[in-house]
């Protein structure tokens, strides 16, 4: 661990978070539905989902700005739901940063320490340490309005970690930054989290953000957690259609299960039969799911199944060419690597989609 960080006491021992049977209502609206979640100490954890899925609601519940109808939120084994926000010691970085415009950067960062009635010398030391950590000590006497978006974001982070919170909550911290800054800041956040060894929850609707910096992700939809796992697990082994669709592009084909005994097959609507590999889980009403880069067009490799279709559109993406292929009434996407001199298929022509049964999944909604 970084000598400066340990020296200032900013790093503490990481706490675990356990969420048990949480139900939350806005009036009659059931916003969080029986949420259970375990976040390990020191983990960089993401809440990922579309807007309105309940991810920010859960974050605000942990911080104390929402009230659950039932359930528990335990930090280091202690239920905090009865504790007011100002007694929780949970650091939150707001989406808008919420920097107070009437206070300088230094005063903003000192605020939480002053509320804790620390001696002046200690406050000054911790403020400087926090500002050093985000590299903004030279701007300590500016007002928030005089800072760029990225700098404001760093002040918001410094203000939060200065109080040595038990856990760190980040509510869409990158959403107010431009694309270039986002990449830089998310690396900085990851770096900082690693140095402080602080259990951190990161709320986002952007799968790329979650994939690049988080250890594990909980995918939310409609007030429920759909799946929890590492980015790779979620991409490779989604457990339902929502997760498959939300992380990356997924092709979905309707059909029905046929065959008998060990030799089950999936009869695709519009033609083609895919043998279901042994051991593959096939839910009732399951649909065939595969990623565009796992399929081929034209000559199929050995062991691949051929699904007859017609090319309906073509997009040149640089490294790949993405074809839209109509199979029955559905359309699937197939990515082909592009290299110079490659001959492209024209729209309107018939083409078979080649698919390895091993790279296919069967998922239900």
């Amino acid at each position: 661990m970084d000598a400066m960080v340990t020296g200032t006491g900013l790093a503490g021992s990481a706490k675990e978070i356990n969420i048990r049977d949480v139900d939350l209502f806005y009036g009659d609206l059931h916003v969080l539905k029986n949420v259970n979640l375990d976040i390990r100490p020191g983990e960089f954890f993401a809440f990922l989902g579309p807007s309105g899925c309940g991810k920010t609601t859960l974050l605000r519940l942990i911080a104390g700005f929402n009230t659950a109808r039932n359930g528990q939120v335990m930090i280091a084994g202690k239920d905090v739901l009865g504790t007011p926000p100002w007694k929780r010691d949970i650091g939150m970085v707001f989406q808008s940063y919420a920097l107070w415009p009437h206070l300088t950067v230094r005063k903003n960062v000192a605020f939480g320490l002053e509320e804790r009635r620390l001696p002046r010398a200690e406050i000054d030391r911790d403020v400087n340490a926090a500002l050093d950590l985000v590299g903004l000590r030279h701007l300590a006497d500016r007002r928030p309005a005089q800072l760029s978006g990225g700098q404001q974001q760093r002040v918001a982070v410094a203000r939060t970690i200065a109080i040595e919170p038990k856990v760190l909550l980040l509510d869409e911290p990158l959403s107010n930054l431009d694309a270039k800054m986002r990449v830089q800041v998310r690396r900085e956040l990851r770096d900082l989290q690693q140095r402080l060894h602080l259990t951190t929850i990161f709320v986002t609707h952007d799968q790329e953000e979650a994939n690049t910096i988080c250890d594990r992700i909980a995918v939310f939809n409609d007030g429920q957690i759909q799946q929890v796992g590492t980015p790779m697990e979620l991409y490779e082994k989604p457990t339902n259609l929502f997760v498959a669709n939300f992380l990356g592009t997924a092709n979905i084909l309707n059909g029905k299960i046929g065959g008998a005994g060990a030799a089950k097959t999936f009869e695709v609507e519009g033609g083609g039969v895919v043998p279901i590999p042994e051991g593959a889980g096939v839910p009732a009403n399951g649909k065939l799911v595969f990623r565009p880069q796992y399929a081929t067009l034209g000559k199929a490799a050995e062991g691949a199944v051929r699904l007859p279709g017609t090319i309906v559109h073509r997009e040149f993406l640089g490294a790949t060419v993405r074809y839209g292929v109509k199979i029955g009434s559905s359309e699937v996407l197939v990515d082909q690597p592009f290299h110079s001199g490659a001959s492209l298929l024209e729209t309107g022509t018939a083409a078979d989609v080649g698919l390895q049964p091993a790279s296919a999944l069967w998922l239900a909604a």
Partner: protein
Amino acid sequence: MAYALSSPSQRVSSRPGQTAAVLVIALFLGVFLIVPAGTVIYTAFTDKGTGTFTFVNFFDFFGTDLFVRSFWNSVYVSGMSVVWATVLALPLAVLTTRFEFRGAIVIQTLGFVPLIMPPFVGAVAMQLLFGRNGTVNLLLNDRFGFKLPFMDGLNGVIFVQSLHYFPFILINLSTSLRNIDRSMEEAAQNLGASGFRLFRRIVFPLAMPGYLAGASLVFVKVFDDLATPLLLNVKDMLAPQAYLRVTSVGLTDPMGYVISVILIAVSIFAMWVSAIAMRGKDYSTVQRGGGGLSRRQLGTGESVVAYGVVMLILLLVLSPHIGLLLLSFATVWSFSPLPDAFTVAHYGRVFGESSLYIKNTLIYASLAGLIDVAVGGAIAYLVLRTRIVGRRWLDWAATSALAIPGVVLGIGYLRTFYGVTLPDGTPLAALWVMVVLALAIRRLPYALRACYAALQQISESLEEAAENLGATKFHTVRRIVLPLMMGGLLAGFVTSFSTAAVELSATLMLIQSNSDAPIAYGLYVFMQSPAGRGPGAALGVIAVVMVALCTLLSHYVIERRQKANGMAK
């Protein structure tokens, strides 16, 4: 044509029309604002006999006990009015913006009611309710054997003014509070702050610019007000002294002008303080999608206290209106908590004899409103849509009217136009048209803001589209800009109209004959004698109803306008 060349993307102007507009407006502002105000200032610095530049008048002023006392009385009364207005406004603003409070809208609306009645009208009713022998003191004396000097001397002025002007603080403070994003408060809670500490360290500082804007407005309004102290028979304040010097000693007495200059200086100073307070402090922090401060539920005990406080304040605030209403129906009301008996005779008398006042008011206020909207709309267009030379000057000149108290403008008109006579020998200053012009000038800054707002909401591309399809500048204005601005112009008109209808300071100086008088003047005359109080109160009620209707109408217009805007943009 340097302007057109330097920015080819900007409109190529039809110069003659715009130039003519600039000249006409400049003439109007020059003759009816700059020259009268300039004359007042010039006279204050001129030796009465020789006409040379001198500070002697100011030395005289500060060497006279009465004037020095008047000056400090005015400062004291204005300052205390701000204090009491704050005491009234703060609980209402905080309770309605930060707590789940049933009836918050009713409170906010009732909080505005005082503004739709000139303060001096309420003053008489307040005497009857809170005076030495008024309702409250009679009851206090009966039960507890003591009286409170609510209305004695300067107290009375402070009491009436703070009740009347506290909405300025309420409006500004509430807006500021509402514009604070809840994340500001949550971030503080997240870092360990709560309760009063949170309010003191985060919420109030963020609302401070709004509060200061409201407070400085109250200070200026009270400092400049003429009619309320006069009606309460308090003469040793600055504005009444200016009036009395000019009306009793005469137009040549320099003291009236010296006082005028001091009034202007104080106005400018207060506006400067407010501008300093606001500079670089646009603390409006509401984020897109975020609502203002989160509202907290009140506990049962807290609710009882909160509702008690609010009811008390509202009762106090509405007492002038209640008193006025009682008075307008009272036969005799003296030395008793309530009137002896009730009658509608006063209304009969008012409608019979005094319908002239109502008619005059409608004419004057309508004309003033029309002038304001025409001039304000033209200036707004010139500033926002053209690059013609001098457009900024027009804006500044029109806005500078804010710094000229009514009494000063009145004195300026008398001084400037009394020497000018019509062919039949009547002095120009004695014409009723002068009242209209004074009212128009006084209300112009507010109408101008309304016009700016209306024009800013219209996307320039709508005009460019019209020009692209072959419409000339003039046709574009007539067929596109004016129809789209109509709602805003109407709102501006109603604001000018309703405030001009109850203005007295300038009117008191300029009205020469009873037949030319508007309601405010009639009220003033009625209220001077005990026998006139009943009809006066009836006239006051009519004025209040008239202004209330206009205010409602303007709200309605603005709301409709906002709805229609979704389509216009």
